Structures are given as C-alpha cells and as structure tokens.
C-alpha cells in the first residue's frame, strides 16, 4: 500500500544549502565595496532571500541516514517552531515595552522566519541527541 511520506531533498543538498551562505557573504562584500550599486533596502532584501533559501534547503535535506525516527523528530521540530513562532508574535509587543520600544512595532517577516529556523534546527538537533 502507498504511504504518504515527507518529501525531502537528498543529503548532498546540505552542501548546496551551505553554499548559499557563502553566496550571501560574497554578495555583502560586493555590495559594501560598491561593486554592485544597489539601494540599501534592496540589498538587505536580497541578502535575506539568499540566506533563507540556504536555510530552507538545509532544513528540508535528508540526514545521512534518514529513518522513521528522524522523520518523526523532524515533524515534531516543525510543529514546535510553528507554535513557538505564533507565541513569539503574541509576546513580542510586551517584550518591546520592557525594553522601552513601541508596543505597536510589528515583528518583521525576517525576524519571524529567522526565529522559526533557529527553533527548528535547535529542536531537531536536540531531539536527535536526547530522544
């Protein structure tokens, strides 16, 4: 019988994901040395896009030995990062008050995505180590 499985990229994609970080650093160097003339905001968006593509590839690439336990830990980590991100968006305005910032300042999509990726990688690696 056919089972629905989590579709992931092959393990060698992890190296491709890491290459994107090199690409982001190269882009920053080219931009700061005025080799690529761009608006600051455009450059920031492009840098974050490159980093997020790299992080996404790393997140959805298989482990060297991907088995049912790692798939389960991966799904738990995905759920954990999603639920925590919702909590992060709810709590952040109150944290802003504590640090004297504006209560109404919104969480940026970059902040949110970075938080989700960090929580996902932390939950997945600790799951692999302790479960």
């Amino acid at each position: 019988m056919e089972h629905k499985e989590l579709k992931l990229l092959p393990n060698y994609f992890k190296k491709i994901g890491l290459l994107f970080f090199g690409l982001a650093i190269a882009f920053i160097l080219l931009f700061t040395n005025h080799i690529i003339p761009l608006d600051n905001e455009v450059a920031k968006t492009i840098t974050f896009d490159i980093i997020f593509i790299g992080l996404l590839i790393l997140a959805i690439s298989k482990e060297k030995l991907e088995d049912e336990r790692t798939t389960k830990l991966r799904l738990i980590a995905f759920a954990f990062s999603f639920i925590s991100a919702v909590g992060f968006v709810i709590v952040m305005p109150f944290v802003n008050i504590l640090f004297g910032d504006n209560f109404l300042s919104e969480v940026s999509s970059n902040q949110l995505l970075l938080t989700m990726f960090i929580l996902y990688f932390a939950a997945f690696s600790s799951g692999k180590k302790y479960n």
Partner: protein
Amino acid sequence: VQNNLKIERALKNITQDDLAKKIGVSRQTINSIEKNRYTPSTILALKISKIFNKTVNEIFQLENSD
C-alpha cells in the same frame, strides 16, 4: 510499549550497529527503541522480529498505560 530487544540482541550476539544496518535504520534509532524512548512502526517491528525469528509480540509487549 515495552520490549526485550536488548536481551534478544545479546542472545544472538548482535550489536546495535549490526542490527541497525540489517534493517536500514540508524544505531541511535535502535538505542532509542531499547530505552523505550521511541516506539517503532509496525513495519520496523516486523523487520526486527524477522531478524530474531520471533513474532512481534515476543519482542514488543503492551504496557498497562498503553
């Protein structure tokens, strides 16, 4: 679910690594099953029982809390 995988493995003199390679999972997965931190799928339980020439029930048993 409790199991006597560690005992069965010792009786057959198979290491965690050997067993893991035979059924295509990581050694950590075998370790987690033995420590009752992970309950294997039916397919994996069947593969394990086949290695030891036993039924699934002889290796894995339900606990009162299940």
